């Protein structure tokens, strides 16, 4: 039996179907998330379902034409999901309709082997001008590549700057094995004793500071992000309500410590940049957002590294933005890739802008702010 869409008629029935996420699907999607992405046999906590509903159905910029999708199997059960976040953007004064796709998962790929492909194609072929995936793992990246969309290295690499090597090794291990935290006192002693040995390799810039840090929150933080985001040709078209909502979500993430938000200003009070990071003593700090005015990248990065060290973090990491790669290299960061940024667009101007590195399409502009990325649900 062939399943070919006939002209003017609805497609013939198929074994599985893709349709927009509905509120009644949330418990099933939470269970799927718990099983597939968290690899847990325990029932999904209620808080996970509540969170999925809030992020994917109650987003302040929710766009019914850019819905998250579920795959319904032959028995009528939810067996696949792809989350979609609306991400309105601006390019040289023109509106760009963007959708951020993530959390692609299939419960029983052996029984439903085409579900992942159909979910991804369904989102990619939507009405948006630009599709973005910021955290594509190897499997989903393989699918994007088969669709003709390669990873973007200049937006994909993670940077890591180590301050205390033994502490970093211990903290990295503790992210997988909690018992490794017991090694912290030994690591701390090792770093103190061995400091003279790697001072040259890891020393931060000793030049006098040419900046001042100003803690930011609420309307001041929002105003700062709005101002700095516009320094990229392609940037989020945030409104204050949506940005406030996203920052509130981000602030709930606790895995890497408390959220710290700062403006970086010149001694004369000129805005040079801002950063939002999560840090705790003895941990690896995580950078959600790093934005800098042109030619101020090195200063803003130096201020972030200084701040992270002052919190007691043993290292700090984040996602590169093209303008930041050079200054990060000079700050002795190293680079690795554990999730890829990939985009799809048929618009040549959007593609050229992203290829040129003049796009703000990661972090708060994409999906790193949601708790599904690097947080726990109890």
């Amino acid at each position: 039996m062939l399943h070919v869409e006939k002209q003017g008629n609805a497609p013939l029935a198929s074994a599985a179907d893709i349709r927009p996420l509905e509120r009644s699907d949330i418990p099933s999607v939470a269970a799927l998330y718990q099983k597939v992405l968290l690899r847990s046999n325990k029932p999904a906590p209620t808080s996970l379902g509540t969170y999925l509903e809030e992020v994917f159905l109650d987003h302040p910029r929710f766009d019914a034409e850019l819905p998250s999708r579920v795959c319904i199997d032959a028995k009528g059960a939810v067996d696949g999901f792809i989350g979609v976040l609306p991400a309105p953007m601006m390019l040289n004064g023109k509106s760009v309709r963007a959708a951020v796709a993530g959390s692609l998962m299939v419960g029983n790929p052996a029984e439903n082997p085409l579900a992942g492909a159909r979910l991804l194609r369904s989102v990619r072929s939507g009405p948006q001008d630009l599709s973005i995936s910021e955290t594509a793992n190897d499997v989903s990246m393989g699918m994007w590549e088969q669709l003709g969309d390669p990873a973007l290295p200049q937006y994909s690499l993670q940077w890591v700057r180590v301050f205390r090597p033994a502490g970093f090794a211990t903290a990295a291990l503790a992210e997988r094995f909690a018992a490794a935290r017991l090694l912290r006192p030994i690591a701390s002693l090792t770093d103190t004793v061995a400091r003279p040995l790697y001072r040259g390799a890891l020393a931060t810039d000793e030049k006098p500071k040419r900046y001042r840090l100003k803690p930011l929150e609420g309307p001041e933080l929002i105003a700062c992000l709005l101002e700095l985001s516009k320094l990229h040709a392609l940037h989020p078209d945030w409104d204050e309500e949506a940005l406030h909502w996203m920052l509130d979500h981000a602030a709930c993430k606790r895995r890497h410590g408390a959220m710290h938000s700062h403006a970086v200003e010149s001694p004369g009070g000129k805005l040079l940049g801002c950063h939002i990071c999560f840090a705790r003593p003895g941990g690896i700090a995580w950078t959600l957002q790093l934005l800098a005015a042109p030619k101020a990248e090195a200063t803003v990065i130096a201020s972030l590294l200084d701040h992270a060290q002052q919190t007691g973090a043993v290292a700090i990491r984040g996602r590169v933005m093209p303008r930041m790669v050079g200054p990060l290299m000079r700050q002795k960061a190293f680079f690795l890739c554990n999730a890829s940024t990939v985009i799809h667009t048929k618009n040549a101007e959007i593609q050229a802008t992203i290829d040129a590195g003049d796009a703000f399409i990661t972090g708060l502009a994409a999906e790193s702010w949601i708790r599904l990325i690097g947080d726990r649900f109890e």
Partner: protein
Amino acid sequence: MQVDVRSDVREFIVDNFLFREDRETVSDTESLLENGLMDSTGVLELVAFLESDIGIEIQDNEIVPENFDSIENISNYANAKLSKNSN
């Protein structure tokens, strides 16, 4: 005159999917999905081949096992699409 794409489909399947499973042959009716020869990534590779090399346009809701599960099904599906395009 309608061209049968079966040999092209077979060649693509053999060249791209069989070597990964260390197999030498596959029958026209053998299930590619049930036997693990093709997964979601593989089907997208096949879709790209059918669209670019065979010249058919595939709708999302046509990517179903009934159309993509075996060389025979894929060939019948592609031939039907080509036939529809030529009418």
